[in-house]
């Protein structure tokens, strides 16, 4: 039996007096593809950022293989190396080429030798279809290409779970397609993913579990069939109805 990789327990986050997350509880098991959906401002991104400690939770805990990541002596950089993150705004390093972007984490954090790091970087870039562009700088490639490089950079660290924070929200429809197809492939290969997204069709097709967030709480969760086919709560129905109209 393999336990959960991540367990979120009673997590709350306040910015000043503004409560963004309240009493969030959920777990991520190996192989899970969890999509978090919900309106903008419902706390989806904040939840992801709390899990990666880019935001410090106000209360509650996040357990990584049973260890609380907010503990005083917890090695945060080592944890982040095992829990990858892909951002809405890509956040590729502007001073490095595509290849260097994918190698720097392996070289500096994992201390992998140059040759091995290069082979790995190339194979992950190949996987996302970006290997010809190794010498390009981030400013020279398109948004969809940047995001695919960002995914390769995260994969190169060989994380146990990969967090996606609205990876396609800054892209035009054609680029959305190329990024989502990469993510579909990763899901098929069994990579554990936690995805905040507004792409409902993608969430329906790819995820093993869908979490609907509303006003900082988890309102409803279940299989894609349950959430998209037979939602129980009125808020979920209202939220999904907006996508059906178009």
């Amino acid at each position: 039996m393999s336990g959960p990789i991540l367990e979120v327990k009673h997590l709350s986050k306040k910015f000043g007096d503004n409560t963004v997350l309240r009493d969030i509880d959920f777990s991520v098991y190996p192989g899970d593809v969890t999509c978090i959906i919900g309106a903008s401002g419902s706390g989806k991104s904040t939840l992801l950022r709390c899990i990666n400690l880019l935001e410090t939770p106000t209360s509650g805990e996040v357990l990584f293989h049973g260890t609380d990541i907010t503990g005083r002596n917890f090695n945060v950089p080592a944890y982040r190396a095992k829990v990858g993150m892909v951002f809405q705004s890509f956040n590729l390093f502007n001073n490095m080429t595509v290849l260097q972007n994918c190698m720097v984490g392996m070289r500096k954090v994992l201390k992998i030798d140059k040759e091995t790091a290069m082979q790995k970087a190339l194979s992950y870039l190949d996987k996302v279809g970006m290997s010809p562009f190794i010498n390009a700088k981030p400013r020279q490639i398109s948004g969809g290409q940047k995001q695919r490089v960002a995914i390769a950079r995260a994969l190169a660290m060989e994380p146990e779970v990969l967090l996606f924070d609205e990876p396609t929200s800054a892209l035009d429809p054609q680029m959305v397609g190329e990024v989502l197809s990469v993510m579909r492939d990763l899901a098929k290969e069994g990579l554990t993913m936690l995805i905040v997204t507004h792409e409902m069709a993608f969430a329906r097709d790819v995820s093993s579990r869908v979490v609907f967030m509303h006003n900082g709480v988890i309102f409803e969760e279940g299989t894609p069939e349950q959430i998209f086919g037979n939602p129980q709560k009125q808020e979920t129905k209202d939220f999904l109805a907006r996508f059906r109209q178009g």
Partner: protein
Amino acid sequence: MGSLPADFGGRILFILQKYGPSLLNGALTTLIIAVVGTFIGCIIGFIVGIIQTIPVEKNDSIIKKAVLWVVRLILNIYVEVFRGTPMMVQAVFIYYGSLTVFGINMSMWFAAFFIVSINTGAYMAETVRGGILSIDIGQTEGAKAIGMNHYQTMTSVILPQALRNIMPQIGNNLIINIKDTCVLSTIGTVELFFASKSVAGTYYTFFETYTVTMAMYLIMTIFFAWLLRVMEKRMDGPKSYDLATKDTLAHTSGMIRFPGRKWGERK
């Protein structure tokens, strides 16, 4: 002593022939002090700027917070004092002060390097701080997300970009230093202005001598302005990139081989 020609052009030629070497020596001194001073000043500026931007988090130990507070206080005083007083006064204050109060007889070179460096450092500290703060927070988050610590994030991601962004300001400082080393003539540094004064005073050829001096300053500043532009371009890297391919036949059309052993081999 040769006799002085009557026309302006003749007098300039006369000065160049007779005093050219001494003026060139002065210019060389100016250049060395300005370049070395700016370089050391940049290092000081980077150290101070980096310390000023170390993030303090809630659950950091009280010792770290206290040490950082004290160090930052001292650095703030340093920056304010040296930005807020004229370099000429600092030069006199430090050079003669160290002699009378501490009995330290600084060599001319040491005093010159010291004063210019510490002055530039004070300005650069704020420039570097600004340069670091100007880098998008996403760069830091991207680095943190792959497990880099603060030191790795700074050295691999933030500082290279900050350095590129503050290059124009470094150029500014270098040019200002080339000009402002002339204040060191008050402590007897024989730089270009000091040399010019001596030459001009010998024959009372102020206009002619300072025409030459102006030209020399201008040549130095324009040269370094150009050099820094070239350095900026080099830091930006090539404007275009070549695609990599395993198809060796395509290599003739400008596509490149993959690097490394496995991917780079012929197929």
